């Protein structure tokens, strides 16, 4: 891994330029994600500033961008609707504490247990939810709204081919906001959904009663936020690792996410995490070091303080168009091929993860269900031992453990020949159940007056076999 100095100042020019690009690209997203969560745009903007700046110092993956995200916004919708902003801020602080603890207890190791199918299900359901959250802002808003959404989409998909330096969403915002002014077009704007304050965030305690009841309200949300935030952050860090051919400290990143959320909650910001799209923009724009993340956060708040007046005039349909682009970009389009070509169990896990997220509106529940389901599928598939018989010799292929012994016992019990050899050279005894199964089968067949021999145990299995039978003589 690089030295601290390299992480900060190894790429000053590239980091400053890419940080500015990311700040410009972050503004529309931070506002739109605030609107998804049902809070003032400032909550998302403050969060993006605060999280980006803190993560620049405490994160484990230099060059990765963290801020207010759609995944987190979607988890907090109900909390905000039922209890309001102060409970969200309290939940954000608690999320931070949970993530710090998970980081301390080396959560990153557990990430390897999350199968691809669940990850793919996660990003796809996230994309679908972001897309669906836009529908209410468009339906029944009139013809001109549809036109603005369409024009925004045309701009964000064609302009990058000609203008590479400035993020296309920002160009769409500038052009279309100007058009509404010039032609006096009446559209719903960001200002109709919240206010923009042109000031730096300040420290305050969330106004909630410090009771057990409050904890009961926020804990489920905080747990879900902690899981979703770490999942997306660790996935993003893997992607940035790959793009830059460098390594990162995943546990430090988990702790860093926690510290960032913990502090952000005290400064009026909503919980956030790493962003795949923005991190990719950063790397592609030349960002590699911690400086890029810091510049992104600082420049973002600078823009808001200077341009806050204009931000409220951004037409909602333009933001909707940008969010549709984000949704399309987040979706893993190779999933359709995956659903057909991947092993049946994996495809089912992916689809079920998506269905459960869409049904419960909760990314965390979908992910947890997906992980459990795939673990069950894994046990089911590994518990199938293949047994072939040839002249009284039974060749067992596959591991023997508590889940696979049933099948083993049933097949071999039915042996008819008088001389039976059980060949375990392609198998492995894993636990007490497997040793018990071998003993059981052998004694049962011997009761019937047959001779049985067990051959081909590998050394580890042999050792376990003797140990569990209480035989202490060495091999």
């Amino acid at each position, binding site marked *: 891994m690089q030295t601290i100095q390299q992480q900060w100042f190894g790429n000053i020019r590239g980091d400053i330029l890419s940080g500015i690009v990311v700040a410009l690209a972050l503004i529309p997203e931070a506002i739109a994600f605030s609107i998804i969560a049902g809070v003032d745009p400032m909550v998302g903007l403050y969060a993006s500033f605060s999280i980006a700046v803190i993560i620049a110092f405490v994160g484990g993956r230099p060059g990765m961008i963290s801020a207010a995200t759609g995944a987190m916004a979607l988890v907090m919708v109900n909390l905000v609707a039922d209890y309001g902003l102060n409970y969200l801020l309290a939940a954000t602080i608690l999320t931070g504490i949970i993530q710090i603890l998970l980081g301390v207890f080396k959560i990153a190791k557990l990430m390897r247990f999350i199968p691809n199918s669940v990850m*793919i299900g996660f990003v796809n359901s996230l994309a679908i939810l972001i897309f669906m959250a836009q529908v209410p802002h468009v339906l029944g808003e009139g013809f001109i709204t549809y036109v603005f959404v369409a024009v925004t989409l045309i701009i964000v998909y064609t302009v990058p081919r000609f203008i590479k330096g400035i993020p296309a969403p920002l160009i769409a915002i500038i052009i279309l906001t100007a058009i509404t002014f010039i032609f006096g077009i009446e559209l719903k704007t960001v200002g109709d959904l919240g206010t923009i304050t042109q000031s730096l965030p300040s420290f305050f305690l969330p106004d909630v009663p410090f009771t057990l009841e409050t904890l009961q309200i926020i804990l489920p949300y905080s747990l879900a936020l902690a899981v979703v935030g770490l999942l997306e952050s660790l996935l993003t860090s893997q*992607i940035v690792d*790959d*793009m830059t051919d460098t390594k990162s400290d995943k546990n430090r990143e988990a702790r860093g996410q926690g510290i960032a959320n913990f502090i952000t909650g005290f400064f009026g910001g909503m919980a956030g995490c790493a962003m*795949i799209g923005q991190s*990719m923009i950063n790397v592609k724009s030349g960002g590699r070091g911690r400086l890029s993340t810091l510049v992104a956060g600082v420049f973002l708040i600078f823009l808001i303080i200077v341009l806050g007046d204009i931000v409220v005039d951004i037409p909602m349909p333009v933001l909707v168009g940008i969010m549709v682009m984000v949704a399309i970009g987040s979706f893993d389009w190779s999933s359709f091929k995956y659903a057909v070509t991947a092993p049946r169990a994996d495809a089912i896990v992916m689809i079920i993860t998506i269905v459960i997220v869409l049904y419960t509106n909760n990314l965390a529940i979908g992910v947890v269900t997906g992980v459990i389901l795939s673990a069950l599928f894994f046990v089911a598939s590994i518990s199938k031992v293949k047994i072939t018989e040839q002249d009284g010799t039974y060749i067992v292929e596959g591991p023997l453990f508590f889940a696979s012994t049933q099948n083993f016992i049933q097949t071999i019990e039915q042996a008819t020949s008088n001389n039976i050899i059980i060949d375990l050279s392609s198998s492995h005894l894993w636990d007490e159940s497997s040793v018990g199964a071998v003993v059981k089968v052998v004694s049962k067949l011997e009761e019937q007056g047959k001779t049985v021999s067990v051959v081909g145990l590998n050394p580890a299995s042999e050792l376990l076999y003797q140990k569990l039978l209480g035989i202490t003589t060495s091999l």
Partner: protein
Amino acid sequence: MYQHILLAADGSENSIRATVEAIKLAKCSPTSIIEVVVVTDFDKSKQDILHTQSSESLLLKRKRKISNVEQLLKNEQINYKITFLKGAPGPEIVRYANELKVDLLVIGSRGLNSLQEMVLGNVSHKVIKRVDCPALIVK
């Protein structure tokens, strides 16, 4: 002759033909080395990470893509090494070739994705324009 030959490859039909020509040139001198350079586009990272369980299996998957090129080099007993790079294929190949001051760049005239080439233009054409060393485009 050419000591350090850079061969841009992506496992396509065209890069196989490029490999054959690179081998002919490398055989002129026993000390020649062919460096096979494989560029993975930034945009592929997300999909690759989502669809492989670990970075080790991803490396294997990327190596498999050019196994046909590697096999050819092995059969002909050429000194070779493989380098994986990330970024936009064209500019990345140019940067690498210029930085290492290689003696010759060999590249196929067209890559795997012909649809992308229709939209973005020909990678090899762009590379040839900007690279400092002699270059060979193989049809």
